[in-house]
């Protein structure tokens, strides 16, 4: 069964038998979107960010304040410049460095498969499709639909003036359809996949593999944001610097946001030997966890995850040469040992803490599953050398504590907006 929650700008829930009607509507409406200059689209999205921040019904919901920051005009401008090199390519043929005129045309209909780890993920995916002037059909977890709809409801209320013309947010909204359906239903998933000119897939290993195998049209582009792993590294100079304790507050926040369910969530922190023992550093991290806002510290977890955390704590407490620092409740857990390796994620704010002799010991651990490494390395040359080596081995993002979840492009090594367009040429006479 397919439930459509939004189509042609109408927030009506209805049951559909297939995607034909939905895709026809998105395909028709995306023409109006493509006709809007990119700067006007950015203005509308900037206005949307301000509106959601001022809407008391939604501005307290998790992730919404970040959305409004992310939608700021300067940020969207930067994203477009990084992806397209020049925004003008989106609005018409434009002289490139070669002899030809080039334009970035939208791919058409983007079908999004949204994962269940982050309530606002679907919104970021939609905005990227809008910035590349594509229509969207979005399959998202049912529990996140109300949040996304409440944000999108603001769009028709927005109009902006750009170079003497007024543009409405409704044109953006009309090109979006939100659907829910049982992902295990192969026949429905196949139909959804076949409606796509481009597929964006977010999810864990099993989901990504299953969706990738679905049939799609020959020209269809598939962009995969698959399962990834992240961690943190601090070198001696950084640990002994004044800013280190403040960085641990940032690290605790990075661990806590999304309760370690995101691909950008750190699971291990490596600390280079310094004048502070790993136990002392763990005690500072403990204080940092305790300083987290209540909503981040006390996130609900399943009883299965409780059992997993309880078992991990007990294993470390019973073992020789390991330790565990944790409160009485399951708010957070620091697991300390000396084995230089990455650890299977537990989630629920469980961070493995390991002392290393040199940050170089971490380099061989990096592979293509590593998304982000949050680093604290003071010396710029050492920092650069480390970053070159770990990115060569597969890591995608080398960031600083407190920014690990910042949704900047490229993400997972992908310039998403660039992949969402077709680069076409017009040879001049």
């Amino acid at each position: 069964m397919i439930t459509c929650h939004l189509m042609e700008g109408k927030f009506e829930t209805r049951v559909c038998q297939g995607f034909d009607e939905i895709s026809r509507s998105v395909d028709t409406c995306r023409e109006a979107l493509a006709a809007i200059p990119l700067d006007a689209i950015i203005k509308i999205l900037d206005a949307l960010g301000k509106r959601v921040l001022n809407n008391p019904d939604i501005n307290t919901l998790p992730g919404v304040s970040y959305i409004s920051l992310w939608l700021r005009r300067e940020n969207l401008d930067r994203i477009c410049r990084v992806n397209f090199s020049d925004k003008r390519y989106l609005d018409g043929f434009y002289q490139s460095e070669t002899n030809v005129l080039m334009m970035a045309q939208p791919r058409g209909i983007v079908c999004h498969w949204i994962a269940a780890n982050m309530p606002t993920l679907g919104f970021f995916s939609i905005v990227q499709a809008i910035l590349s002037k594509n229509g969207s059909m979005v399959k998202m977890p049912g529990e996140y639909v109300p949040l996304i709809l409440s944000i999108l409801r603001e769009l028709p209320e927005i109009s902006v003036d750009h170079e003497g013309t007024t543009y409405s947010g409704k044109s953006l909204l009309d090109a979006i359809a939100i659907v829910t359906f049982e992902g295990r239903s192969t026949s429905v998933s196949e139909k959804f996949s076949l409606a796509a000119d481009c597929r964006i897939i977010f999810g864990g290993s099993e989901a990504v593999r299953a969706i990738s195998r679905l049939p799609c049209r020959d020209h269809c582009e598939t962009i995969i944001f698959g399962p990834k792993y992240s961690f943190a590294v601090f070198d001696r100079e950084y640990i002994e610097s004044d800013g280190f304790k403040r960085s641990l507050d940032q690290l605790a926040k990075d661990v806590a946001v999304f309760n370690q369910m995101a691909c950008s969530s750190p699971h291990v922190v490596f600390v280079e030997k310094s004048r502070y023992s790993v136990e002392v550093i763990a005690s500072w991290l403990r204080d940092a966890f305790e300083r987290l806002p209540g909503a981040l510290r006390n996130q609900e977890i399943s009883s299965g995850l409780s059992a997993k955390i309880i078992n991990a704590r007990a294993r470390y407490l019973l073992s020789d040469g390991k330790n565990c620092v944790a409160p009485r409740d399951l708010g957070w857990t620091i697991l300390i040992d000396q084995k230089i390796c990455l650890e299977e994620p537990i989630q629920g704010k469980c961070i493995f803490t390991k002392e290393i002799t040199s940050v170089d010991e971490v380099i061989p651990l990096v592979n293509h599953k590593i998304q982000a490494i949050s680093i604290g390395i003071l010396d710029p040359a050492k920092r650069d050398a480390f970053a070159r080596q770990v990115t060569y081995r597969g890591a995608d993002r080398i960031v600083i504590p407190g920014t690990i979840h910042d949704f900047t492009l490229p993400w997972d090594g992908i310039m998403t907006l660039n992949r969402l367009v077709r680069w076409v040429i017009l040879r001049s006479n």
Partner: protein
Amino acid sequence: MPDADPIPSKGAWTRDTIVALPPYSQDDQHKNEFLLPIIKEQLEIARRNNRQIDNYFSKQGIEIDAIQRLEDVPYIPVQMFKVFDLRTRPEQEIVKILQSSGTTGGTPSRIPLDKATTLNQIKALKSILSDYLGERRKIFLVIDHEGINSPQMAFSARTAGVRGLSIYAKKIFYLLKEEDGRLSLNMPVIREIVENYSHEDVYAFGFTYIIWTIFYEQLKKEGMRFSFEDFTLFHGGGWKKMQELAVSKETFSDTIAEVFCTKRENILDFYGMAEQTGIIFVDCQHGNKHVPTFSQIIIRDPFSLEPCDIGKTGLIEVMSILADSYYDQAILTEDLGVLVGVDDCPCGHKGRYFQFVSRVEKAEPRGCGDTFRESGR
């Protein structure tokens, strides 16, 4: 319920006197008072004799002298029996190591037993069963195949049930047989029972899921029923599968009671585990599981880990004074339960009473966070 024995004077509470008491005769507060000093003494010995347990206490800064309530006794998660040797007596005193595969297979738990612990477990189980079966030995029907009790079989919840409950058996009959790994009715034995033992006092044991999907289903096809003068069925385990079949505890009890021509009250679900052999928590006629004198249960909130109030679901922690040879003083299970009440069950049993809710669902990593291991290399 047997009459309560005279209560020993304060200070005279030893483990032996407690195990000898009628199992549901003591109110909760009183029980906590006499269990705590015994457990604290056992913790001292456990800590002295096991480096891992000493690690566990010292890393958490736990001083045994400072423990004021049973709730503060450090619990060890049940899974740790699969990872660590939790023996608390010298190796030469261990006479047997129980290896329990549990219901889900995988790495077995290892439970080291010395003579005193084994003896305590037998006494305790006898005490519990006597409350439900009286003092006389009876015919014991095992709704399983004979191989389940063979020494070659890995110790499982099914084996534990058969061996534990057989202490009241005058004669044992296995109602199922196994051929090529498939269970089916052992018809010659069933006919013998129907013909020769219908007027005897009988009790039976089986794994809930097996009773329903094999015994009951096949018996229905054969059109057979039993008719005993006096009958009690103890059954446990497999509730997750039963939930998948949408068979409630009530439906199970009513249907199986009909098969044995008995009342629903005689179909008794129980909760227990190999890591705490000797103690089973059996349903009373009101569907509540009662905690015998020599043990205690605490339901802990899955996040705060603090004891839950009555009516709130949480993780079941089981406590006991029976074992000298391993850490069974406080074991945190991966089962969810709810404390129904204390000292006031209409059945008259004293102490805490609870209901089993479900096994904890295995937690798979959620979201796009994943293992660090690359696939395909």
